[in-house]
């Protein structure tokens, strides 16, 4: 059976990479003695996949992964048992049985971040609230540099093309809290640093930005 679960990755765990996260999950599953299914072939590996990588340095309360088990298992037992063996900073919040054959990573269409923007004065925070309203209407181009075999390849991208919506959630004193949905398109996705740069430049007088991933978007309902 296939189980899709939603979990958190917080605290010092935000400093570990995608592959490290995968290994941490695999080891937790081993500690919990879950009946993991392995791939066939020369070098079998557990059938476990994480929906999409989380950027290093970002915490998340909405990560998704899919695991295949050899034997059926009650979903609530799964959640309870895995939480007993996960390292501090990781916790499974929900899980469902999946009958879809399409893999979880293939179903991801976007990622949702909750962004706290800190300002130095309340006035600046007020102005930013207005700026937000039409923030995606104007093009905003940045140059993305990539090293390709010793050469630096430059590519111009338009940030709003990658942003599905930016929504004001809360505003209090010096802080405004927004929700940003980054969508995946043919040319890939927006990097978290590019989003940060965009917000710094658009909202002016930003003191600090704090981002947490809160969830992902899928082509269909997942959990």
């Amino acid at each position: 059976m296939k189980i899709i679960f939603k979990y958190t990755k917080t605290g010092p765990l935000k400093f570990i990479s995608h592959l490290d996260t995968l290994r941490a999950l695999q080891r937790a599953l081993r500690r919990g003695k879950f009946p993991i299914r392995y791939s066939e072939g020369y070098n079998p590996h557990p059938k476990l996949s994480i929906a999409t990588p989380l950027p290093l340095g970002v915490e998340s309360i909405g990560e998704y992964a899919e695991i295949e088990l050899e034997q059926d298992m009650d979903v609530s037992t799964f959640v309870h048992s895995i939480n007993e063996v996960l390292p501090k900073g990781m916790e499974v919040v929900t899980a469902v049985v999946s009958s879809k054959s399409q893999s979880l990573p293939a179903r991801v269409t976007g990622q949702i971040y909750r962004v706290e923007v800190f300002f130095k004065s309340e006035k600046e925070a007020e102005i930013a609230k207005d700026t937000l309203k039409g923030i995606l209407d104007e093009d905003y181009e940045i140059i993305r540099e990539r090293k390709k075999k010793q050469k630096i390849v430059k590519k111009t991208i338009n940030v709003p093309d990658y942003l599905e919506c930016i929504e004001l959630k809360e505003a209090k004193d010096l802080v405004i809290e927004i929700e940003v949905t980054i969508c995946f398109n043919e040319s890939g996705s927006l990097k978290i640093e590019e989003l940060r740069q965009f917000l710094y430049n658009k909202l002016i007088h930003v003191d600090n930005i704090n981002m947490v991933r809160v969830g992902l978007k899928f082509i269909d309902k997942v959990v």
Partner: protein
Amino acid sequence: MLINRNLEDILLKVEKPARYTGGELNSIEKSKEDIQVRFAFAFPDVYEVGMSHLGMQILYYLLNEQEEVWCERVFAPWSDMEEELRKNRLDLFALESKDSLREFDFIGFTLQYEMSYTNILNMLNLSGIPLESKSRSQQDPLVIAGGPCAYNPEPLAEFIDAFVIGEGEEVILEMINLYKQHQSEGYQKQEFLKALSQIEGVYVPEFYEVYYNQEGLIQERVKLYEHAPTQIKKRMIRNLDQSFFPDKTVVPFIETVHDRVVLELFRGCTRGCRFCQAGMIYRPVRERSVEKLLEQADILLDNSGHEEISLSSLSTGDYSRLLELAQVLLDKYEERRIGLSLPSLRLDSITFDLIERAQKVRKSGLTFAPEAGTQKMRDKINKNIHETEVMTSIKTAYQLGWSTIKLYYMIGLPEETQEDILGIKEMAYKIKDEFFNRPKEEIKGNLKVSVSVSCFVPKPFTPFQWSPQNSVETFSEKTALLKKEIKDKKVSYSYHDPKLSVLEGVFALGDRRVSKGLKKAWEMGCTFDGWRDHFNYDKWMKAFEEEGIDIDFYTTREKSYEEILAWDFIDCGVKKTYLISEHEKSKNGDKTEDCRVYCSGCGVNTSLVGGPCFENHI
């Protein structure tokens, strides 16, 4: 555990930030208020190396089992992190509490290899702790050190308050208890060190003065504290089944060098290879029982989730119940896809069936360590393997489908001739030919023979402790000769940097005077000398020159049996007369039997064991 904003900003800038965050599975957090003794276990290399060290894991849990002690970990920060720490005026901190090392009662360094010494100085300096023992006050932490390199503690004598010689499980607790007692009675550093020097296995260098004669040889060692012991006797755990072993290990999040369950089958080695320090200082052999090991494997796997078990000892193939142990482990864990790796197997004791099964789970090449290229040289170093045995093993290996062979050799061994060096090539070529010397239909896979050559470093407490080491030039001629000679697509050749090996020789064989060169080199920016990209030989040579240290005096000079060696005051159980007789036998190419076959009278049985080393001993 606190990562403040400042530290967080830094962590986002450095490579592999999880080296510095702590919080790994099974790491231990305590509340400072309840703690009487704070101990920082310091590994003077980068996180990934230090976390692979079994000794750290053992002592970490042993100390943390004591309610009033909190043992934390600290590793050498990589250069990017060092730069950030210095730029932001932050002290080097321990991973668990993020507190500066200055706030600790003890900083305990483990000395695994000489080339980590500059990192020790750097770590102290990064914490704002004075380097020299005599410059540290009452308020500063006590800086202690142990591990294999502590068998010649003298190059670090200026910097370390106390050394622990031998196995640490018992003596470390005795030290902590003594400290607690002194704390309750009003701690005075001097008084404490005096009391500490009375514990067996503890060496407090400041209680001794060393005098040198006109030739620069040691004239005598004079005690400055009358009750300080003349000889420091190593500590040893008698019964491994009863000794402390943790039921869990800290499981790193990032990839480390060895990241798996390690079962320590035994300590010591009975082979008596004459170049091998470990084979002498860890005597006698003491085995853990299969029952105990299986119990440990179970509990460690359950608590870590590791996917591999490795059997670790000096010569794993010599474990008296190896077959039985490996078979049970394979049977038990095959289904859970837990791999078994069998390192440092000696080719005369390989059990192929076993390896083949182990390889099913994880596939790797076969490793052999003939150490020398000719039989004459192997006899001299007492590596009791005959070429025919090697070839038989290789033949079987090929038949079973192996095609990747790794071979380890040394150059610069005492009385080496060109024939011995070329013998390395000849043996590797013979091994290659054996592969193709079979019916065509049997030849499967793509043969790869890798020859790895290291440069011999004479080590204290070995029969070769008096032998001269080759100079950088001589080593380089030899490595170049092999490079010229080994020209085959199927045979690859790599060798260790002779410069690094010579420097290793200086600190392995050095006395108190080389410490000045160490400090100077560190001041000139040397750290992580064991890392190729960091090692700067020219800086080192400049440092020695400025301090007036002649490295040839320590390395290429042949020492006489009468000379007082810098480490003679340490008693590792093996008698000097035995080392001399082994050295003489080496000259004649006479072999010495394995201790399990015949006791050659090294002295360990009388001085440490108080009886025969094994049951039913001959």
